[in-house]
Each structure stands twice: as structure tokens, then as C-alpha cells.
């Protein structure tokens, strides 16, 4: 039988993979993809809690809906920032974007 722990372990692994992508990628779009992986892992957690701890209630799923809304807004604004960066600096390589570093 698949238990709550199975889903939590899966989500933890997915979150860590996303974190690895965020830290190690040079391309700004790839960093955005890593953030999407992490947000998806959180959604798995919320839905699994909703299913196994409070099955008759759907509060966890409502939270997941809000996270999807925020993730959609985040991707739109993130890509717009990357486009503005590409126009201003002619690169989206995260290692060359060090304006705040000296």
C-alpha cells in the first residue's frame, strides 16, 4: 500500500533536484525551470496531506491552487525580467550577471 511517506519522500527528492538545478545552472531560463520543479514538489506535499490526513476536506487542494496561481505569475514576471536583462546586457548567463558584486 502506498502511504503518505512515499509521497513525502518523492516530493523531497523532487525539491532537492530542483534546488540542485537552481544552484548549478548558468542559463537564467534553466534556473526558472528549477524553481518550477521546487514549486511542483510543494504541491505534491499539499495534495498528499489533503488526501491522507484530512480526506473529506479539500483545504490542502485549495492551497495548491493558490501556489499554481503564484507560480504562473512568477514565470510570467521572471521571463519578462530575463528578456529585459537580455536587452540591457546582451546575455542571460547567470555567471556574467554580477552587477551587485564587485
Amino acid at each position, binding site marked *: 500500500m*502506498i502511504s*503518505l*511517506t*512515499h*509521497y513525502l*519522500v*518523492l516530493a*523531497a*527528492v*523532487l*525539491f*532537492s533536484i*530542483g*534546488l*540542485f538545478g537552481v*544552484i*548549478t*545552472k*548558468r*542559463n537564467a*531560463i*534553466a534556473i526558472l*525551470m*528549477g524553481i*518550477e*520543479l521546487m514549486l*511542483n514538489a510543494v*504541491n*505534491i506535499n499539499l*495534495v498528499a496531506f*489533503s*488526501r*491522507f*490526513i484530512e*480526506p473529506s*476536506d*479539500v*483545504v490542502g*487542494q*485549495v492551497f*495548491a*491552487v*493558490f501556489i*499554481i*496561481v*503564484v*507560480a*504562473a*505569475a512568477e*514565470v*510570467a*514576471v521572471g*521571463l*519578462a525580467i530575463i*528578456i*529585459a536583462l*537580455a*536587452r540591457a546586457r546582451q546575455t*542571460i548567463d547567470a*555567471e556574467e550577471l554580477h552587477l551587485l558584486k564587485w
Partner: protein
Amino acid sequence: MEIVFWITAFVVIASAVGVVTMTNLIHSALLLALTMFGVAVLFVILAADFLAAVQVLVYVGAVMALVVFGVMILQRGPMNLSNMPSKHVLGGLFAAIATMGFLFWGLGSTEWPVSEAAPAATTVEPIAELLFTKYVVAFEVAGVLLTVAAIGAIILAKEVRAGD
């Protein structure tokens, strides 16, 4: 049911590893779509039918289209070298493994109050009811957030100069 979970879990993890290890940005993007689709399958197993539909529509549909358009507009130079790792691979590996260990420790040492009750037969109605009663303020704020994000994205991408 069990075999569906194991196959889906394998597909999700394998494609997520592909997303962060591929050196071609388009391969990463397509594998990300596969990961999102696998998460939608997990939602179906978890009896969250509405969220599974939203996941496919918003992530596999809208977000992936946005990302692929971003790649198309922004990518210069050879595609097969478009997604190279930075010099922080060892640090990233350490951070990821440390985070995973911390999360495993947390969920292994917690006593979850698991309930054996049957899940709600349909989720659309209860979600709608909660959204428009108990969480109506959060719902409206989410609407405002989406509007602000859309306008902000247009302004950022269009580049407004002083004097316009």
C-alpha cells in the same frame, strides 16, 4: 494502483534529473513538461481530479509554452551548449543532498495523524465552495496578483523609456 505510483514516481524523478543535467535547453524544457505531466498523474492517484486538470492546463500548457517561447526569443549560439552547468556543481550537489537529508530526517521523525476516511468523491464543488466562502479574500488577492503580474510583465518586456 501501486504499480501506477511506482512507474509515475520513476518517470517524475528521472525526467527531473534530466531537466537539471541536460546541456540542451530545449531537451530540458521538454523533460520539464514530462515531469509536470507525471505530477498531474500523481494528483489523479491522490483523488485530486480538479487539480490534475489545472496542472495539465496551467503547467503543461501555459507555463511550458511561455518557457519555450522564452527559449526561442532569447537563445543565441549553439543549442547543444545552451544549458551548461556553472562552476558551482559540487556546492549545488552538497546543498541538494543536505536539504534532502534534512527533509528525510524531518519526515522520518514526525508522527503523521493519518486518517483512513474515504476521499471526497468529487473535488470541484468543495474547492469552489471553500474558494468563495472561507478563502474569498485570498482568492481576490490572487486575482489582483495575476493582474499586477500580467501588467508588470508587459511593461518589463516592452521597455518603457522616460518620456514615453
